[in-house]
């Protein structure tokens, strides 16, 4: 076979030929994807896309303007390059390619976004459960139109105020567990009948003779609302806020829906990028095996790929956290290695994986995990050694930082556990829940921050409470508890 193209220039016919070749290989490996839609855009349009978190349509808000200015400034000064692509979890899966990219980069991006990310979006359980890829674009169109209508009717200042407040609470506007569907009338009737029957079956007249308990039930246990703490604050506001206008409620809902749409992405950053990187690497190498690309193409591809998966050490100037591309790529590649060429250590650590079919194993991993569980499940000692991972403990009681454990025999499990925890949602977003809505009294709302290991909230807390107060319409207070003991002052925003 001869190479599809030579040189850096690309055109639409070539894009299609590369896509055909890549699609064929993806088919060989059994990648299951949504149909692809590839859109070529300019760098300015890429900056626009950045500002709206990659979404093609967004409602107008100043914070997107701020984000745009920040990116534009960073780009103009050369402090930040632009991503080669943006891909949207939608059906068809939309990927943006920048026109400035060379042919090799375009091919890499197609493999990465249109086949890697795309199959992840379609396969991973979080995306399947929490996003509906075929509906998101329509919803965005609706949201934009609705927000703009509200601005016309109620003034942009009023809309902005609501949106500001919602944005402040966005991380607390997601459901982490699926809400049970409201029972239908039939089901409800059946349940009541069953309960009645149960009571009749266990009727015993003797219970009537027991003396009454003297103590009154406390008010909280009797009529407290909500009965269980609610972690989705925006949902609670939308459903129960005493003062919100219907259109404000709808705005809360829009922001909540968007937060929910992005929720899986935040939890699968390492997996998602790792999966896409693993596949662009595998696919492009296969292209080379087939003789479809020339050496110049490969050199450029390898240069880009190496940049993407570089992991600077913690002391270096370039360090800005663990690179999800590097970590994810290493995890998937290592998993493949364990399946194909396991050594003694792998057999001891992963007895079920060693020697299995790597395609099945990787597919299973991609579908059924999120970052936290994926790392906890598949991080091998060899990888920890390669990354030279070590855990540092930062405790208030100590004057110095303590090296908790390192990549050695005693530390593997501990490092892996800590690394997994570091990617858990609870580490990033404080646990703040609605505990009480005083429906019969002053209608105030009480939140509880469940502090973990003494980690306090930032000073911005009071502002967030003030934002919530704006949505709620009555007094809002925030208490901090740890181990059933209350700490610190109550942050309160009076009615």
């Amino acid at each position, binding site marked *: 076979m001869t190479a599809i193209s030579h040189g850096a220039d690309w055109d639409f016919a070539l*894009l*299609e030929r590369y*896509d*055909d070749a890549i*699609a064929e290989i993806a088919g060989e490996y059994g990648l299951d994807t949504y*149909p692809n*839609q*590839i*859109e*070529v855009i300019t760098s300015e*349009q890429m*900056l*626009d896309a950045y500002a*709206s978190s990659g979404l093609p349509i967004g409602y*107008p*808000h100043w914070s997107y303007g*701020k984000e745009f*200015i*920040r990116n534009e*400034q960073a780009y103009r000064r050369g402090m930040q390059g632009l991503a080669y692509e943006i891909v949207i979890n939608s059906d068809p899966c939309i990927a943006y390619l920048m026109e400035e990219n060379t042919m090799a980069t375009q091919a890499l991006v197609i493999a990465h976004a249109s086949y890697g990310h795309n199959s992840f979006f379609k396969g991973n359980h979080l995306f399947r459960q929490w996003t509906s890829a075929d509906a998101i674009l329509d919803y965005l169109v609706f949201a934009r139109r609705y927000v703009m209508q509200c601005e016309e009717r109620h003034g942009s200042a009023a809309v902005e105020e609501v949106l500001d407040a919602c*944005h402040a*609470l*966005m*991380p607390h506007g997601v459901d982490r567990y699926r809400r049970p569907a409201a029972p239908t009338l039939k089901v409800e009737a059946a349940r009541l009948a069953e309960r009645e029957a149960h009571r009749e079956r266990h009727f015993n007249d003797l219970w009537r003779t027991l003396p009454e308990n003297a103590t009154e039930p406390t008010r909280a246990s009797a009529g407290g609302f909500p009965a269980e703490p609610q972690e989705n604050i925006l949902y609670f506001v939308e459903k129960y806020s005493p003062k919100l206008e219907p259109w404000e409620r709808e705005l809360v809902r829009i922001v909540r829906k968007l937060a929910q749409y992005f929720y899986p992405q935040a939890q699968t950053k390492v997996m998602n990028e790792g999966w896409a990187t693993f596949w662009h690497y595998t696919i492009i190498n296969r292209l080379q095996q087939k003789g479809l690309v020339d050496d110049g193409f490969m050199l450029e591809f390898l240069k880009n790929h190496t940049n993407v998966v570089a992991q600077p*050490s913690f*002391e270096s100037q370039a*360090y*800005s*956290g*663990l690179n999800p591309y590097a970590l994810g790529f290493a995890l998937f590649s290592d998993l493949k290695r364990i399946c194909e060429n396991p050594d003694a250590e792998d057999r001891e650590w992963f007895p079920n994986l060693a020697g299995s079919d790597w395609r099945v194993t990787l597919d299973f991993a991609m579908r059924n995990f999120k970052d936290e569980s994926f790392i906890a499940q598949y991080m091998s000692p060899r990888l920890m050694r390669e*990354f*030279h*991972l070590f*855990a*540092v403990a*930062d*405790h*208030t*009681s100590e004057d*110095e*930082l303590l*090296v*908790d454990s*390192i990549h050695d025999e005693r*530390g593997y499990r501990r*490092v892996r556990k800590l690394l997994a*925890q*570091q990617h858990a949602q609870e580490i*990033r977003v404080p646990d*703040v829940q609605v505990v009480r809505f005083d429906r019969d009294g002053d209608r105030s709302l009480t939140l509880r*921050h469940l502090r973990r290991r*003494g*980690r*306090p*909230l*930032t*000073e*911005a807390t009071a*502002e*967030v409470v003030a934002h919530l107060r704006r949505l709620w319409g009555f007094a809002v207070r925030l208490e901090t508890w740890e181990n059933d003991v209350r700490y610190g002052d109550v942050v309160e925003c009076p009615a």
Partner: protein
Amino acid sequence: MLQLIDRRPNGRGKSAVNRERFLRRYKAQIQGAVKKMIGDRRLADMEQGGEVRVPRKDIAEPSFGFGRGGDREFVLPGNREYVAGDRIPRPDGSANARGAGNEGGSGDSEDAFVFSLSREEFMQIFFDDLELPNLARTSFGRTELRKSVRAGFAKSGVPANLAVVRTLKQSLARRLALGGGLKREMQELDAAFALAVATGSAGEAATIREELARLERRLGVLPFIDEPDLRYRNRVLRPEPIARAAMFCLMDVSASMDEEKKDLAKRFFTLLYLFLTRKYTEVELVFIRHTDDAEEVDEKRFFHDIRSGGTVVLSALELADKIRAERYASGWNVYAAQASDGDAFGADPARSARFLRERLLPATRYYTYLELAAPSMQERASTLWAEYERVADATTNFAMRRASEREQIYPVFRGLFRKETQ
């Protein structure tokens, strides 16, 4: 299966509306930043756009997050020498934020949000603050230059200006108008001829044919182009405002003018300069400082050099008039702004006022006098003020104000130019 779409022609600027919202929301902060920038800039640079710094905390979007403190562990890559149990001194402040894995990426320790304003945005904010929105748009002054501009078509002209298309349109219209009646008559005759032939009245048919031939001849002699069809491109001379202005900055730098007063003067000159640059394409600056004698200097020395001595206002006026006569005698709009604390002695105020009225004012478009008084002295007018007041009463292109504090400069400027906006 694959859909390829070229979105490049869709254009950018999707974020323009959001950017504008951002600017509107933080107008107060941006205005503050712009004001500060103006203090540091050179006069002639004033009109450029610029980088604005807004404190990051002012524009932060709050959310619940973890502050410092408490117990935690984090995993880092790139260990070289540490073993479990080692102790590391706690890095201070900002460096600490780097430690925490994912959080590290967003731990931006910069405290200012920097972005660029375009020239238009900059001026918008600047004049917003001045509350002078209409000032720049009002027409200002008379003109001497004339410019030839197109003005439709004329029936006479030189052959070089012949408008061929227009001429042909005229000729077509004329031919339609003159020939239409004839053609209608011929159609009627055609019908009558056919009838005559059908009924067999040969004599009638012959007359009709003759009549038809006559009409055809008449149609034939209509000229294709006739004298009245000719049209020529027409041009007229329209008065054109002079696009050049010379701005004279006159300042008293005697000992009594301290830095504070000079700063006020600078602000005032700046405003005038900006105002003029919005009106004229080219503005030249002339700086004249004076103590007991006047000299022309560059901007830097004008504002920052220290000199001391007495005060003779007349010297500066004479020098200004001399420079004007030499360099800006014709084709220039001359503006002058004088700043002084008004300390003049003896015959100088009266002579200056007379020179101003008789020599300088007739040659300038507008002359402003700003008297910089110490706050405590505000009530007492100087001798120069008293003399100038009479000039102001007698002329229309002279205005004067007093200012003692920074905040007064904008209103004073507005007051000075209010006359022109009405």
